[in-house]
């Protein structure tokens, strides 16, 4: 069956460092991937997405990398700031499915 999981439940980084959050997926048919940031008590906030015809996409201070060969997805945050502290979720979907399947989340803690 489908599963989307994360390698590290908690990641602690120093302010100004780069952060890398990883995600593995198991469904070979997955062709759409998305990262969300969720602060405590709030709904998830869209960060960046990528389709399977790409292997890299950049946003403001964030980059998503997709390795379809090993079914691995990562989110890189440059110059991590205290405001980046949150739980980050990866999610996937595939053609014909209207909903997203979410991973269990990684907590990012930014130390000042």
């Amino acid at each position, binding site marked *: 069956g489908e599963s989307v999981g994360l390698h590290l439940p908690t990641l602690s980084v120093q302010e100004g460092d780069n952060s890398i959050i990883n995600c593995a997926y198991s469904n070979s048919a997955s062709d*759409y991937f998305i990262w969300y940031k969720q602060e405590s*008590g709030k*709904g998830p*906030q869209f960060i960046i997405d990528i389709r399977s015809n790409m292997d890299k996409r950049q946003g403001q201070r964030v980059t998503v990398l997709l390795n379809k060969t090993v079914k691995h997805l990562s989110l890189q945050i440059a110059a991590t700031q205290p405001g980046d502290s949150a739980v980050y979720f990866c999610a996937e979907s595939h053609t014909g499915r209207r909903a997203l399947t979410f991973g269990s989340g990684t907590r990012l803690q930014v130390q000042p």
Partner: protein
Amino acid sequence: SQTIHQWPATLVQPVGSPLSLECTVEGTSNPNLYWYRQAAGRGLQLLFYSVGIGQISSEVPQNLSASRPQDRQFILSSKKLLLSDSGFYLCAWSLGTVQETQYFGPGTRLLVL
């Protein structure tokens, strides 16, 4: 711009009582609508989604039901709440017939005692 609202923000209900959570979207037409549940410290589990008025798809068998009486209104209900229904309920919307970004509401925190 589009906005999504959920209410109430917080709810404490006794076991066996009914439930009605409401979600509305503004600034768009014919959105896909979704209900998710999030247990404490966990990921999101899809409960229901709807591609149009009166059209509901259920992802998991459970004590809950959903309805979409209007294009931009999505309601999550239960006739009798269970302790296991406690959690953070999130509504989301998206556009299009293929996978597109889902945008989430602020959530409703439900505690069943």
